[in-house]
């Protein structure tokens, strides 16, 4: 591409106009979701099949195939949306490519079996916008994903990308940008919920050069993947946000710290940065303003604690990712001891929208203290898993039941875990609470990065608390005593509970230890580590008591407290379970009712997993 | 104002060891564990005696070698002082000093050196011959003077003056 540099905002506007014209010509478009989940479900061979089918029908030049970032409805992948009509096909196999082209594209008929059927109403829905999973959302950040190829800067510009950047360079002073962000009420989406504008203002004023801009893409919370999908599906939004931030703060060096487990995100981000450089949006003299800024991408080494800002900075410096005390804030002394502004991916992606629409418009969405939308990763025992973007203040019930389509197999809802390992488990009584930063903190959880893990009656809350403590024990950096030793002991204690040992008194010991960890730990990993335990103790104390007083695991999870047996009426004597049992604990010949010898049985659960007749009973 | 300095005039020294006793006395915290003196008197020959104590060098080797900045100059007195809190007893200062004037007190596990008694050196006060004097300029013609009697120091009985080499 020769002389592609956009030396002025006018040139950008002209390019956009040109691109839009091109786009109008090229309809219709087959968009195939190529987020990681859809890739896993086979969207790559699907895309190839589409190309093949187009070729066969001589349509290569008339129809465009666009592989896009995550559409969010990962449960139903691979997803295909035919534009401009917005016809939504789900779970599309390569073999379906031909019928889609021949039936729908050429003849305008729908392929019935690929359409979405609402599990509640059994209604067949044709268009993306009609599906409750989408219709209840407000996709301000994620909306673009379905309409663009994340590796194409042209697509981004055609959809209005970098217009906010142009506006901030053309019409605004750095102070105006900060003022605008302040006014928008944007709060950090990484978990803490600190006011972004305030952070920027302090960093701008902090003495010391150079100043650094950091994008935290070390999305470590298990059960959260919105940052990954943003980087994979719309990396330019993050890049644009960072450039605006850099201009506002007066920084020339940006870093993106991406999690080790996200190779596709790294790839797409690098492509985006390269393209932005080529177009003169990164590098020296952006828009001929004399302002320089560039971004480096750094891959994490695989440590949850590096999501903590000071540990992340240590890691960027090439050191062991141990946090340090933040009595002197990182906006004053961060990376290499210099003023640094760190925001997470979603926060940066919000910035262009605020500048483009204006703070007032942006602040119309959300609640008093929490503005805008929030992307949640809705997972666990819920029908429609995936990424959902909703305005702040929507209730958990709306998210879990209306968008999420309720619990798998209509089992009873038990809890929803918000905020990852540092968050808490909320019971049914909290379902009608509006979801925003302050409410969640009030009821003993936190927003965190926005993971929502739904649990049904088959989840044991003690086991879940133990799971989180085990996770944190593995991920603790080991620097400070309360976190390192406290997690070790807390894990011991919870193991005791899952074995039904220790008596009710152990709960007091657990609470005392939690108090010490909360108050004495060095960083947020340690001080919030007790949250999963404290919140389950608060809302599900009866489950702890069942383990301790009755030696019973109500959910049938804790191995030491359950027995496996065969339901005789259901057993057909197929010997599948017998063959699968790793310890030969199942007796009975073919066509005879089997029996589980509970002395040998290790309660591994394989028989339950392999039985096709629901003949294994756990108690 | 001209600063006072600690002057040593070896020719006047009688190796009476008053300086050592005085030094040890003012630096002792626990009377059961008397401090080692920071100043040493030597009988070199029948006619030659001298004392040796820290010169508070301008570019001090001890200071250069210390890895933890535990040796700092007291700007008021000009003395290089040991910050025992910071000191990690690596002993490198004791090896590096070309004059052997920074040492370790093994009993107390403390690095010791002359600190000019915070601007009032006891050794000079108790030197009867002005071999040690704390003044702006050395007294050109000293007469032996009366010094205050030193308190009894039983431990002195057990140590002999160092033999000449």
């Amino acid at each position, binding site marked *: 591409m020769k002389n592609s540099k956009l030396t002025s905002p006018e040139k950008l506007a002209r390019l956009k106009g040109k691109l839009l014209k091109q786009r109008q010509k090229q309809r219709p478009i087959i968009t195939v979701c190529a987020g990681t989940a859809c890739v896993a479900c086979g969207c790559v061979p699907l895309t190839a099949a589409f190309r093949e089918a187009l070729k066969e029908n001589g349509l290569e030049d008339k129809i465009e195939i666009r592989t896009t970032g995550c559409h969010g409805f990962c449960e139903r992948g691979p997803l295909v949306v035919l534009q401009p009509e917005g016809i939504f096909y789900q779970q599309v196999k390569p073999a379906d490519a031909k019928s889609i082209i021949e039936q729908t594209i050429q003849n305008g008929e729908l392929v019935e079996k690929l359409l979405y059927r609402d599990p509640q109403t059994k209604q067949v829905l044709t268009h993306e916008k009609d599906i409750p999973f989408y219709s209840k959302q407000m996709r301000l950040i994620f909306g673009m994903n379905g309409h663009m190829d994340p590796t194409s800067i042209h697509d981004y510009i055609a959809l209005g990308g970098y217009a906010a950047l142009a506006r901030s360079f053309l019409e605004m002073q750095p102070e105006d940008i900060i003022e605008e962000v302040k006014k928008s009420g944007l709060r950090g989406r990484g978990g803490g919920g600190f006011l972004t504008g305030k952070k920027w203002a302090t960093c701008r004023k902090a003495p010391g050069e150079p100043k650094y801009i950091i994008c935290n893409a070390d999305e470590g919370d298990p059960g959260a993947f919105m940052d990954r999908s943003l980087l994979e599906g719309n990396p330019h939004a993050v890049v644009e946000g960072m450039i605006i931030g850099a201009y506002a703060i007066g920084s020339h060096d940006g870093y993106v710290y991406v999690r080790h487990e996200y190779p596709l995100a790294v790839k797409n981000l690098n492509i985006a940065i390269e393209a932005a450089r080529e177009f003169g949006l990164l590098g020296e003299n952006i828009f001929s303003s004399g302002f320089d800024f560039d971004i480096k991408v750094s891959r994490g080494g695989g440590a949850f604690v590096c999501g903590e800002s000071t540990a992340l900075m240590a890691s960027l410096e090439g050191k*062991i990712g141990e946090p*340090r*005390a933040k*009595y*002197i804030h990182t906006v004053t002394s961060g990376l290499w001891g210099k003023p640094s502004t760190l925001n997470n991916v979603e926060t940066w992606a919000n910035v262009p929208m605020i500048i483009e629409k204006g703070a007032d418009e942006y602040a119309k969405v959300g609640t008093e203290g929490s503005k805008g939308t929030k992307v949640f990763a809705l997972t666990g025992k819920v029908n429609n898993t995936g990424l959902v973007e909703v305005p702040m203040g929507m209730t958990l019930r709306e998210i879990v039941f209306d968008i999420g389509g309720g619990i798998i197999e209509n089992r009873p809802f038990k809890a929803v875990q918000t905020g990852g390992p540092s968050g808490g488990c909320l019971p049914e009584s909290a379902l009608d609470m509006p979801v925003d930063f302050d409410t969640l903190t009030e009821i003993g959880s936190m927003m965190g990065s926005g993971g929502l893990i739904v649990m049904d009656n088959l989840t044991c809350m003690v086991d879940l608390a133990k799971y989180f403590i085990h996770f944190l*024990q593995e*991920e*603790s*950096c*080991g620097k*400070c*005593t*309360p976190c*390192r*030793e406290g*997690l*070790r*002991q807390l894990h011991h204690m919870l193991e005791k509970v899952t074995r039904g040992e220790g008596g009710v008194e152990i709960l007091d010991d657990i609470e*005392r*230890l939690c*108090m*010490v960890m909360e*108050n*004495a*730990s*060095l960083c947020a990993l340690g001080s919030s580590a007790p949250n999963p335990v404290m919140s389950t103790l608060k809302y599900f104390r009866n489950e702890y008591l069942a383990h301790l007083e009755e030696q019973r695991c109500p959910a049938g999870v804790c191995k030491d407290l359950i027995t496996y047996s065969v339901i005789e009426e259901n057993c057909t004597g197929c010997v599948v379970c017998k063959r699968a049992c790793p310890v030969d604990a199942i007796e009975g010949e073919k066509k005879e009712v089997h029996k589980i010898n509970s002395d040998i049985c290790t309660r591994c659960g394989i028989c339950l997993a392999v039985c096709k007749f629901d003949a294994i009973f756990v108690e | 104002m001209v600063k006072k300095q600690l002057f*040593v005039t*070896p020719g006047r020294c009688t190796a009476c060891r008053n300086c050592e006793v005085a030094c040890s006395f003012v630096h002792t915290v626990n009377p059961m564990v008397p401090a080692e003196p920071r100043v*040493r008197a*030597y009988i*070199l020959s029948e006619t*030659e005696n*001298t*004392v*040796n104590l820290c010169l508070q060098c301008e570019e001090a*080797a001890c200071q*250069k*070698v210390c*890895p*933890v900045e535990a040796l700092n100059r007291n700007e008021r007195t000009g003395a290089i002082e040991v*910050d025992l*809190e*910071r*000191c*990690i007893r*690596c*002993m*490198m200062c*004791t*090896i*590096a*000093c*070309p*004059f*052997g*004037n*920074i*040492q370790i007190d093994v009993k107390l596990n403390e690095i010791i050196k002359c600190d000019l008694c915070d601007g009032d050196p006891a050794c000079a006060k108790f030197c009867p011959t002005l071999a040690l004097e704390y003044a702006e300029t050395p007294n050109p013609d000293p007469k032996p003077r009366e010094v205050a009697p030193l308190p009894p120091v039983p431990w002195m009985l057990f140590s002999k003056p*160092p033999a000449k*080499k």
Partner: protein
Amino acid sequence: MQLSIDGKSVTAQTGEYILQVAQRNGIEIPALCHHPAVEPSGACRLCMVEITHADWGGWKGLVTACLYPVQEGLIVSTANEKVRKVRAGVLDLLLARCPESELIQNLSRQYGIEKTSFIPRPEPDLCILCGLCVRICEKIGASAISTIGRGIDKIVSVPYETEENYACIGCLACATICPTGEITFTQDEQTRSIWGRNFELVYCEDCGIAIGTPEQLKHYSERSGLDMSYFTKCDRCRNREAAARFARITF
């Protein structure tokens, strides 16, 4: 500036930390990972104190005294019930980690703990992972030791090194600074041993007492810029020799 520690008004300089100021004023705060020779790290969490301020609208918080910078009007409580409770909890955990450490036993006793209420670590050593050894080694410039691994499996160790490729200089600073005595060394007439390596010794040219290891003296010569001739004799021999030289100088 003025601040208040346990009701006592004390003076401090900008850039100082609470612990420093408290210690200077004779207020004792226990701290295990703190040593003035190295940068504070806030690892042991024993020096927790409660702070508040007239302007903070009643907000109080626990912070580590070793790392919290002083500020005008700060109100610090170093021994109230909450502080003692948290410190006791930390000590209880440390005692479970190092049940055999006398230092921890004594400190715990001061907080009313005779025996840990937790499960003691199997095969415990005396290491409380205060990190002082690593920090002092870095400060000295050898950086021969590091924490290895993370979380509950973290240990302090030397990386596996070859004979010609060894960073430890055998200076013993780590053993000296170790508060619990976990880092040990031996020395006889010929060798000094630490971290599983034997060092030769350099002796005083005159009296023959050992003054260090060749690696140590070389390292110190390089970092101070002093010639190797500065590192040949013990202090006592130097002192005597210098005295003789001085006697012959006429002023």
